[in-house]
């Protein structure tokens, strides 16, 4: 186990990557990839940078990084496919199961 340092200095740059903070979640957003319209609104609004953006040229949908997603649901709220009644929902919140 690492010892504590003087004044709580953390000497390792970028060490936050060592910590997966998605375990707090009780709900999680789930993508239906074929319904993604590549608008990237979810990526823009995600407060935790837990979404890898879609590539409209390659028709590649977004990817959710569950290591860091806290399950706030903002992506589901902002999803343009969800808002458009003529389109099928791309994102949905579902209870986290462990």
């Amino acid at each position, binding site marked *: 186990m690492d010892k*504590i*340092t*003087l*004044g*709580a*200095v*953390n*000497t*390792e*740059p970028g*060490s936050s990557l060592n910590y997966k903070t998605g375990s707090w979640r009780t709900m999680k957003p789930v993508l239906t990839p074929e319904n993604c319209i590549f608008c990237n609104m979810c990526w823009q609004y995600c407060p935790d940078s837990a979404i890898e953006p879609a590539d409209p040229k390659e028709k590649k949908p977004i990817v959710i990084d569950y290591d860091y997603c806290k399950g706030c649901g903002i992506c589901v709220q902002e999803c343009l496919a969800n808002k458009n009644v003529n389109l099928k929902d791309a994102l949905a919140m579902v209870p986290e199961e462990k």
Partner: protein
Amino acid sequence: MGVKQVVKGNFATAVAAKLARVDVVPAYPITPSTLFPEQISQYVANGEMDAELLLTESEHSAMSAAIGASAAGARVATATASQGLKLMSEMLFIASGMRLPIVAAIGNRALSAPINIWADHSDTMAERDSGWLQFYAENNQASLDLMLMAFKIAEDHRVLLPAMVGLDAFVLTHTMEGVDVPLQEEVDEFLPPYEPVYTLDVNKPMTFGSFGTPAHYTEFKYAQWEAMERAREVIDEVFAQFEEKFGRKYEQVSEYRTDDADIIFITMGSVSGTARAAVDRLRERGIKAGVAKMVVFRPFPFERIREVASKAKVLAILDRAVSQGLSGPVFADISSALANVSDRPLLMDFIIGLGGRDITFKDFDDMAEKAQKALKDGKVEQEVNWVNLRTELLGGE
């Protein structure tokens, strides 16, 4: 040998910062410490001091800048008082928690309300739990000397804690006294450059002021506790080195005519000289009195206070501050130091000199009279006594 100069207390602390080759002085001037940044700004403008003077928009910002500069490896000094120290309060705990050896000169002044600019220890006493080392100067020479020693003690790798040096408002900050100002080469020999353990460096990024969860927070506080405990021996070492170099002796607690004393007055700051003269007068009348002056208040000098207590029948503790609903803070701490001592003297608290009220020989006569009565009765009727209280002013609507 230094150069004798007639100077104000604020000059003494500013010249100490110059002689210590301080790199950064973040400050927001407040009475009675305003002359400190003024003097530093003159030194910098004249090219006598190679330092960055940052005039910030508040004391909170001044201490924030001090923390940043110290984390970057600079030697940092600042000065404030009273309300300014209160506005710094949040950042004081961060400086000590981050283990940054910042040194601050505090012109001890009363707190509002009612607003008052005169001598009183309420400002620093309210920060006694901030994790800063606390020293109290009796005169301008001590203000300079303690400021110099504070850097060496604070920066010692066994300590690495910030330190404040208290000098009473106006009585010291604005009063001219003869002071031996050491030569630069003497100070250079005494005080080596600050060697930080970690520094902010863009080429080697680190996180300063990081998060501490319940799993680690206690251990960080314990590490601070251990540093404060180790500071006791570092203070004694540095006081001894200072005496060897400059010929002036400092002790955590200095005693005067205590060996056969029945009554020992416990003092801090500028009143100590008056106390010694008052004790001489009391002795002429056959009253066996002595003085123990506390120079160090944090870490609290438990062992020395117990030694002093073992000599006395009554400890008359002068408190230039009050913890409302309890007692004076010095009385409370001395009481705790003696809690497990079976053969302890009677303890009496005297709230005195608040908001700059003069402390006179008559006050010492009154305190001695009360202490003698307790001595005769073998008990203390009233623990907390307000000295020279103008009862005729009380009872108004």
